[in-house]
């Protein structure tokens, strides 16, 4: 369903700050795949997602989703195919807007924005139910400003927003990294729940090797803008953290960040 062919991206080309962030990425995802992505800092993981969503244009290569060529499509037009959750809980929501307004905005992703009410009574009831299912006590705070919520609550709402209308592809960029371990576990569990329920094709970047192994049906390791290891199916299920660390050092220049080691 997702087909990435030979994508390159260099930031600030020709300057002293030149950075080859992606150097020939080829990746094909099947519908329903849940891929976890690991790799050191600066490996190009976030850039890969930015290429898919169109935050920056690619230097060369093509990106297709279900046969639709996205390569030249502006980011806001591609958005209808995607749901995305960032590492920073601030990034996925509009802080000055109410919880229900944020959800209503996400519900209209890919649809024309008209002069009809921005949120209907029926939607409100639906949001209340969805929020109740999160079990974070948000179902009675529909009209609270999102900026008043904790990082974990905001991240849970962003996840809800990202999956509200069944995206073709869900992209999670270390979306639990900024949360305390307990909240992180909860948000991760919620992620699994939603992804399994709606069978959403998912890419999840994580710095936690255990999580990378425990979740999804395929695992990718990136280094210096390349995919250096790609494992799926039973082989992936059998993977252990020490093996993964082994692969990591085998992958050449791949340096393990302290953070990755600490949390494995």
């Amino acid at each position: 369903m997702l087909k990435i062919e030979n994508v390159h991206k260099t930031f600030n080309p020709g300057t002293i700050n030149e950075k080859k962030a992606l150097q020939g990425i080829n990746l094909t995802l099947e519908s329903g795949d849940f891929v976890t992505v690991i790799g050191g800092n600066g490996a190009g993981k976030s850039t890969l997602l930015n290429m898919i969503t169109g935050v920056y244009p690619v230097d060369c290569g093509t990106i297709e989703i279900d046969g639709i060529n996205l390569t030249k499509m502006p980011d806001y037009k591609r958005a209808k195919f995607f749901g995305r959750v960032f590492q920073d809980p601030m990034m996925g929501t509009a802080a000055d807007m109410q919880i229900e307004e944020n959800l209503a905005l996400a519900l209209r992703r890919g649809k024309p924005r008209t002069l009809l009410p921005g949120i209907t009574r029926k939607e409100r009831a639906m949001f209340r139910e969805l929020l109740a299912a999160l079990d974070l006590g948000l179902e009675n705070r529909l009209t609270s400003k999102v900026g008043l919520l904790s990082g974990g609550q905001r991240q849970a709402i962003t996840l809800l927003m990202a999956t509200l209308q069944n995206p073709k592809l869900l992209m999670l960029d270390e979306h639990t990294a900024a949360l305390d371990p307990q909240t992180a576990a909860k948000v991760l569990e919620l992620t699994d729940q939603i992804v399994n329920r709606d069978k959403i094709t998912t890419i999840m970047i994580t710095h936690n090797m255990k999580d990378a192994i425990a979740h999804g049906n395929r695992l990718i390791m990136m280094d210096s803008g390349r995919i250096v290891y790609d494992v799926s199916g039973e082989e992936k299920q059998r993977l252990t953290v020490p093996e993964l660390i082994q692969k990591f050092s085998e992958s050449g220049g791949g340096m393990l960040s302290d953070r990755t080691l600490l949390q494995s």
Partner: protein
Amino acid sequence: MNFLENIWQFIQSLPSPIAQGMIWGMMAIGVYITYKILDVADLTVDGSLATGGAVLVVLTTQYGVNIYLAMLVAFAAGCLAGFATGILHTKMGIPAILAGILTQLALYSINLRIMDDRANVTINRRTFQLIVSSYAGENQLYWTIGKCALFIVVIVGVLYWFFGTEMGHSIRATGCNLNMARSNGINTDSRKIIGLTISNGIVAIAGGLLAQFSGSADVNMGRGAIVIGLAAVIIGEVIFGKLFNHFILRLLSVVIGGVLYYIVISLVLKLGLKTNDLKLFSALIVAIFLAIPHFKAKLAPRRPKPKKEVE
């Protein structure tokens, strides 16, 4: 006794600054849309205010157009000015502040053209049926205040409705978190253009009323309008920010900010400030009020603002 008499005199003279403050407060609602909702400082307003005044006065005095229809055309002219700034900013990549300055500069010439190369065109309340005027006799000032209030109620009502629609939501999201808006499929460029358009339309309406109130349209009538607008927005926010959360109340507090500003201005004029020093005084007031949140934040560090760039 003398002191009390002075106070009484001042209170009796209040309706005029109140009416004037309401008109400027109306203009400040336009500024609120760009500065607070879109998160853009738009300097077009200095020009579009005069455009509104010029269009209204010329249409009524020279073409005999009905004054309410003329107000509508003034609104449209203001919208056009905001649209131009929006195009300069989003389609041509010019920073918003600079885009506003460019439009404002261009409007100076355009406004002179509208007024047939005159810097000032008068409109007489005896010859024309004006909506508002500064004439104090026959309870006219109270009528003026009432009609200004009506305009404000209509504008605030329409804005309340608009910013509750799907379109309005998407504009607010654009100003609040651009990346979030785009990743939710919102064309943020078009939202900025729409916001700037509406904002300057409202500013031009205020310009049309202001020209009637002061008895003429003047090519310089908008000079420093952005500062007065910001003053109204910030005064309203500093005083009522904690109290008012509802959108309607926020807009009204902007108007009250404008009224308070004009009461203070008329007070300091009474106390002997020279009219020529007014702009300096205004700039100081705004600088102080703009600095308040900064110093407050320094005293009590709060949570950091959301990062605006994509990781």
